Structures are given as structure tokens and as C-alpha cells.
């Protein structure tokens, strides 16, 4: 019937806000990836184009150099053979063109050409020119054959070979350079591919995380919805019980008024007739019926939490031990009674009205016994349950009886709902238990099924064990009645009236006074010696430091109950006197009465000695 839902976990799962950081990161990564890809495409095409152009250009250069070198040789031979000055001119043009091509290529270092090979080619061209020049000079001197021999000689062919080798070296080196450039670009693209792959992995991780987050949100929403439904159901039940409680209280309220009139008129009628009047018996039955009806009203008011609880620190374990003592008499012999009390170091303390808790125990035991007409086992367990920072004390009463259907269990705490035969139950036992438990901020849960027995568990907030575990019960037989005169000095008129009445109810004769002079008057004028002085610590007309001394000087040597809001060191010294008791306000009237009785008994020899 009850649930435990931690409100701190019941938060909106979507309330954490939109994950802008994630979205921003995803956008930045995407932009970065596509911009990078575009740059790489452009760069790759650029490099490819440059390599291709350079490849063609170097080939052309090599072809040009080879062709020009051949033209040089040819023109030199033709010049020697023909002595035609036009070949001279042509030869010089070709030589200049070749030198110019080589110089430009050497100077263009950005092209990545092999400079050494070009310089080697240029040197070879110079040597070839030198030999050609020597050959033309010989031809000019008429030694044509010698000139031609130079051009076909070993040295000339050697330099021609070196030129060709240098040209080949140049072209090979350049192709290697271009290939390296392509390889560098390829390596760069492979690196970029790796980066892109990493980004892709990261994106996948983000997407997977988003999917998981969505699932978590879905689960949280499901849980929230489930909790909400449970909450609504339990709230509905609470509201229903509250409404029924109010209805019951309202009925009880009106019914009690009628009953007051019935009982009152019965008394009036009894006053007017003689004891042996024929109506006397009938009046007695009216009063008897009214008393029974009063019990029903009390039950209804308890269910509706219109009864007052005298809450105090109570050990549920000890209450059960005491309760079992008298409950045993009601348990049939065929029912085996077992108790199981947890041995918790923190104790089983709750803030509760012990009488009402015993009423709950009694009602649950009666119901359990009624559910086992053929006998069975009745188990009473008390335990302490801790959940986080809060702790509760539970008392579970289980039987092995006939059990209840779910429908019956849901209505079990409603007043006048009973499955017992007419006349066997009022239908208020569980209602009263529910009302009492609710009044103590507790809960009542029913676990039952047909044929499986019933367990009713009440749960109350636990409190720490009090410093004084249990106040000793006052010896009421000995302290029932006081006697003698009590001097009561209290400045507040209303408080004085109440204290005075309480002391009178305890059997004392009270002399109420409002200030110091009145106390002195009473002490000097009274014939009877007070057995106790109850003195307000802030009584007008009395010093704040020496109130007991003042009382002694006024001629009162008896026991003093000094009642005040706070006491100082001087009071602590005073309290060393056995006949003086300091009592801090607020003071319970019942406590005042008990102390007055106790002090007058404890100090019989110190009283009445004026």
C-alpha cells in the first residue's frame, strides 16, 4: 500500500539542458573535415599538374640540349669542310642558344633540377666548344683534316659522351625528384586519411553516445512515468482515506453531540424517578447503549485522527514485550504466538503515544486471531530499517490464517468494513490502527493473499535513543495525594491559576501569590506552615540572585521548588542544598504535580518549622 520513492531521484531527465557543447563540437569537426578534404583535393591536383608539367618541360630541355649539341658538332664540321661563314654564324648562334638554355636552367633553382648535372653538361659544352674552336682554327690555317680529326677524335667524343651522360643524369634526377614529390604528396594524403578516419571514429562515438543518451532518457521517462502512476495511485488512496476519515469524524462529531444529549437526559430522568421505578431498568439500558455507542465514536475519531496522542520517546520493542503479556490472554490455545525483536544498537525508539501503540498491537492481534479460527501461528516482529539518512522502526504482525483478496485488502482500513459475521466485529479495529499510525507520521502496509495468511506492517520514523533511556514510573501509590499548605508564587495570573489547580488536585492547599511582598505577607500572617514553596525565579519584588536566601530570610526554611527560564552559577550553588530544586521552564503541569508530591515526601523533617 505504500511505496518509497526518493524525490531527489525524481528529477526531469531532460532538465539538464540541450548539449550545445556536443553539437558545437560535431559542427566544428564536420567543417574541419570537409574544409581539409577540399584543401587536399586542390593540393593533390596542383601537385599532379606541376609534376606533369615539370616532367614534360625537363624532357623538352633534355631534347633541346641534345639537339643543340648535335647542331653544334654538325655546324662545326660543315664550317671546317666548306669554310662558309654562314656556318660560322650558325654555329655561334647554336652555341649561344645552348649556353643560354643551360644558364637559365642552372639559375632556376626552384625547379628542383639537379644543378651538378647541368653544370657538368655546361662544362662539357665548353670543352666541346674549345675543341671545335681549335678545329676551325686548324682549318683556317689550311689543316682541314687535322681539324676534322679533332672533331672525330677521342677527346671530342669523350666530352660528347660526358654531355650526354650529364643530360641523362639530369633527366633521371629530375624524374626521381618528381617521383619523390608525388610520394610526399601521397604520404600527406595517407596522413590526412588517418586524421579523417579518427574524426569519423570520434563522430561515431558521439553518435553512439547520443543514441545511448536517448535510451537513458527514454528509460528515465519510463521510470518517471511509472513513479508518477504509483504516486498518483497512492495519493488517490491517501485522499480517499482522508475523505473517509473526515466523513467519519463528521459523523462521530454529530453523533457524540446526540449522545451527550441522550446521556444527559438519561441522568436528568434518573434524578427525577425513584430507584425502584419501572423505568429505571430501561434508563439503565439507555445508558449502557450510550456507553457502547461512545466506544464506536471513539473508534471513528481515532480513525479520523481526531484523538490526541500523548507522544513521548517509546521503545517499540519494550512496548511489544509488555503488550504480549496481556495479549497472550486473548490468543486462543490453538494459536502459537512468536515474537522476534531486532537487537539493534540504536534501539527501537519512536516518538509515539505508548497507549495508542498498544491499542494498534491489540487490534492487529485480535484480527490475526480471528483469521485463524482453526489455529495457526501468530508472529510479531519488530525491526529497525535504515534507508539513507532516515531510519524507521517497523512492527509486523503476521498470521497463517485465511488471508484476504486484493479487493478486501484495499478496503480493509475503511471504517465499518469487515468480513466478520454480524456482531463479531465493529469494522473499526484496522481503521483505528490506520488512524493512529497516520497520526504518528507512519504508514501501514498490508501483505495478504487468500490462503497464504496476512502480514500487516506498521512503520514509524525512528528517533535516537533518549539520554535517559526511560524515566522511572512514578510511585503513584505512594505519591497519589499530597497534604499541607503550598505557597505558590507565580507572577503570571493564568499560569498561577493552572499551577494552583494542579497542586490542589494533588491534594495540597494552595496559597497563590503574585509578588515578593505578597509572599512575605502570607508567611507572616498564615497560621499553618507551608510544606513547600513553589517560587517563580523572576518574581517581582525579589532579587534575581538570592531568591532562596530571600525566602529563608522571610522565615521559610522548608523545601523550595524554584521555577525559571534559566539559572546562573549562584543558582547552581543553591541547588547543592537538598531542600531546593531548580526546575527549568517550560514546565509540564503533570511534572510540577509529581515534583511537589516527591519533594514534600522527601523532606518531611524540613517542613513546617517556621
Amino acid at each position, binding site marked *: 500500500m505504500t511505496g518509497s520513492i526518493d524525490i531527489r531521484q525524481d528529477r526531469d531527465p531532460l532538465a539538464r539542458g540541450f548539449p550545445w557543447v556536443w553539437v558545437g563540437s560535431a559542427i566544428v569537426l564536420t567543417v574541419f573535415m570537409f574544409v581539409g578534404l577540399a584543401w587536399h583535393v586542390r593540393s593533390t591536383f596542383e601537385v599532379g599538374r606541376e609534376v606533369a608539367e615539370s616532367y614534360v618541360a625537363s624532357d623538352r630541355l633534355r631534347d633541346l640540349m641534345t639537339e643543340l649539341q648535335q647542331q653544334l658538332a654538325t655546324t662545326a664540321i660543315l664550317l671546317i669542310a666548306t669554310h662558309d661563314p654562314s656556318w660560322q654564324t650558325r654555329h655561334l648562334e647554336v652555341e649561344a642558344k645552348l649556353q643560354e638554355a643551360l644558364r637559365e636552367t642552372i639559375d632556376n633553382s626552384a625547379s628542383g633540377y639537379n644543378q651538378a648535372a647541368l653544370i657538368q653538361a655546361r662544362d662539357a659544352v665548353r670543352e666541346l666548344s674549345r675543341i671545335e674552336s681549335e678545329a676551325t682554327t686548324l682549318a683556317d690555317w689550311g689543316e682541314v683534316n687535322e681539324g676534322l680529326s679533332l672533331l672525330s677524335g677521342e677527346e671530342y667524343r669523350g666530352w660528347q659522351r660526358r654531355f650526354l651522360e650529364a643530360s641523362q643524369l639530369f633527366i633521371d634526377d629530375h624524374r626521381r625528384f618528381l617521383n619523390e614529390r608525388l610520394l610526399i604528396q601521397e604520404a600527406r594524403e595517407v596522413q590526412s586519411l588517418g586524421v579523417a578516419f579518427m574524426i569519423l571514429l570520434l563522430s561515431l562515438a558521439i553518435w553512439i553516445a547520443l543514441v545511448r543518451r536517448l535510451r537513458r532518457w527514454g528509460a528515465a521517462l519510463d521510470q518517471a512515468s511509472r513513479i508518477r502512476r504509483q504516486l498518483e495511485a*497512492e495519493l488517490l488512496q491517501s485522499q480517499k482515506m482522508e475523505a473517509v476519515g473526515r466523513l467519519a469524524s463528521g459523523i462521530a462529531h454529530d453523533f457524540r453531540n446526540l449522545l451527550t444529549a441522550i446521556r444527559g437526559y438519561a441522568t436528568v430522568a434518573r434524578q427525577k424517578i425513584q430507584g425502584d421505578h419501572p423505568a429505571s431498568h430501561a434508563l439503565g439500558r439507555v445508558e449502557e447503549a450510550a456507553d457502547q455507542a461512545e466506544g464506536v465514536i471513539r473508534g471513528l475519531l481515532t480513525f479520523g485522527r481526531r484523538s490526541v496522542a500523548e507522544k513521548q520517546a517509546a521503545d517499540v520493542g519494550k512496548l511489544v514485550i509488555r503488550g504480549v503479556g496481556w495479549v497472550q490472554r486473548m490468543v486462543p490455545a490453538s494459536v502459537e504466538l512468536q515474537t522476534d525483536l531486532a537487537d539493534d544498537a540504536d534501539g527501537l525508539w519512536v516518538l509515539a503515544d505508548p497507549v495508542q501503540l498498544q491499542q494498534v498491537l491489540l487490534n492487529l492481534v485480535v484480527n490475526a486471531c480471528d483469521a485463524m479460527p482453526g489455529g495457526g501461528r501468530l508472529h510479531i516482529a519488530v525491526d529497525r530499517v535504515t534507508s539513507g539518512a532516515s531510519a524507521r522502526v517497523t512492527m509486523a504482525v503476521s498470521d497463517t490464517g485465511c488471508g484476504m483478496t486484493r479487493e478486501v485488502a484495499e478496503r480493509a482500513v475503511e471504517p465499518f468494513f469487515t468480513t466478520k459475521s454480524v456482531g463479531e466485529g465493529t469494522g473499526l479495529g484496522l481503521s483505528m490502527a490506520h488512524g493512529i499510525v497516520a497520526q504518528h507520521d507512519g504508514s501501514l502496509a498490508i501483505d495478504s493473499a487468500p490462503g497464504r495468511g496476512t502480514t500487516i506492517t506498521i512503520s514509524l520514523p525512528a528517533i535516537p535513543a533518549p539520554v535517559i533511556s526511560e524515566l522511572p514510573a512514578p510511585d503513584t501509590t505512594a505519591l497519589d495525594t499530597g497534604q499541607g499548605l503550598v505557597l505558590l508564587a507565580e507572577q503570571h495570573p493564568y499560569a498561577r491559576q493552572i499551577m494552583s489547580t494542579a497542586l490542589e488536585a494533588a491534594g495540597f492547599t494552595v496559597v497563590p501569590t503574585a509578588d515578593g511582598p505578597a509572599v512575605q505577607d502570607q508567611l507572616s500572617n498564615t497560621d499553618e506552615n507551608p510544606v513547600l514553596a513553589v517560587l517563580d525565579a523572576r518574581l517581582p519584588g525579589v532579587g534575581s540572585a538570592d531568591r532562596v536566601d530571600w525566602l529563608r530570610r522571610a522565615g521559610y526554611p522548608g523545601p523550595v521548588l524554584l521555577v525559571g527560564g534559566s539559572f546562573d552559577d549562584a543558582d547552581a550553588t543553591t541547588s547543592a542544598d537538598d531542600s531546593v530544586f531548580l526546575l527549568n521552564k517550560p514546565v509540564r503541569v503533570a511534572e510540577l504535580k509529581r515534583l511537589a508530591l516527591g519533594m514534600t515526601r522527601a523532606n518531611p523533617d524540613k517542613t513546617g518549622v517556621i
Partner: protein
Amino acid sequence: MTKSITVLLADDHELVREMLAERLGNEPDIEVVASVADAGEALEAARDCAPDVLVLDIDMPGRSVFEVATEIRKLHPSARVVFLSAHLTDQYIEQALEVEAAGYLTKDEPTSRLIDAIRAVARGATHFSSSVSERIVIDEHGAHLGRDHLTRLRLLTQREVEVLGHLAQGLPKKSIARLMNISVKTVEKHCDHVMEKLDIHDRVQLARFAIREGLSQP
């Protein structure tokens, strides 16, 4: 001959009122000088006849009986007030003590107790049902209901009580924040304080507590 104690009776239940009037009228030292059906009529009657003792039912329609008791005591400071009610609540007891009632009885007690009470208060004493008197404490300011019996609602600030009421109605924190014109974080802070002070850590129990304290109407 001893002077009669004049009594004003106020109870909205006619049968009860008439029975009490007849029962009290049978006592030689008690004279019922007025018998009225609500607190307003009681005030008028008290003006006219200045009774020694007023026996006032708490649960009467119309004006608050406690307000009226205060006014009557201003008019006639010597008037003694005895409250009657069909049942006890902490609130009733606290209010009765605030107006310095001379007595408080419940209607399940025999009428003879009321007669005793009238006589006691007439001579200046007080007379409370035992279940009331055992819970009265005396402090620096007079007499009050013992703090142990005060509802735990007193532990909360007005703002926290308001948040508790909304929570019990099932409102989400965002709506509560909007209603109270405060931030959601402040609502959460109030919630934490409420749960800490009441030692209640789930919403169902909070709702039940709020219903019980009358913060949430079923």
C-alpha cells in the same frame, strides 16, 4: 443563601443545549441566565447579562468562538470561560490556552464533570480534562500546549509550507517555481529543507503529511 453562579450556555445542538440547561438548572447553586446557538449570540447575551461562567461549544457555525471569548473577557474580565468540544485537537487546546480559558472539557465526559468545572472556575480555579491538563506547560509567557505535541509543520517557514502544499498537489518543480515567482533551484532548496526538517524523503509521504495538515484538499 449562597449566591448562584450565573452561566451562559452556547451550543448549536439544540438537544445538547437544552439538556445542559435543564441539567445545570437542577443544581441549586447554578443559574443558567442565557442559552444561545452560536458565538455571535453568546457575545450579545454576555453583554446583557454578564454571566460568571460561559460554557462555549467550540464547533459552532459563525464567528470563531475563541475570538468571541476574547471579546467577552475584555467586556467582563472576571468572566470565566469553559470550552466544550466533541473531540480534542492540538489546535483547539492551543487556542483555548491562548485566550486563557478556565476550563476545557470534552462531551464524552459525564455532565457532572461540567458541573464540577463550573463550580471550580467560578471560585477562581481551572478545570481541564485530564488529557488536556497533562499536556499543558508553563513557560515565561504563561500556559501553552507542550511543544512535543505541536505539529511538525511548525518547523517549516511560511515559504517552505507553501512549497510543500504545491508538491502535495503533484505540481512539478518548474510549475511551482513559476507560481511562486522563484527559480527552480530555489524550489529544490526549499524541498531539501522541507524533507530534512520533516525527515520525510519521498513524495508520497510528503503528500500524505500535507493532506493530514490540511495543506492539500483531497
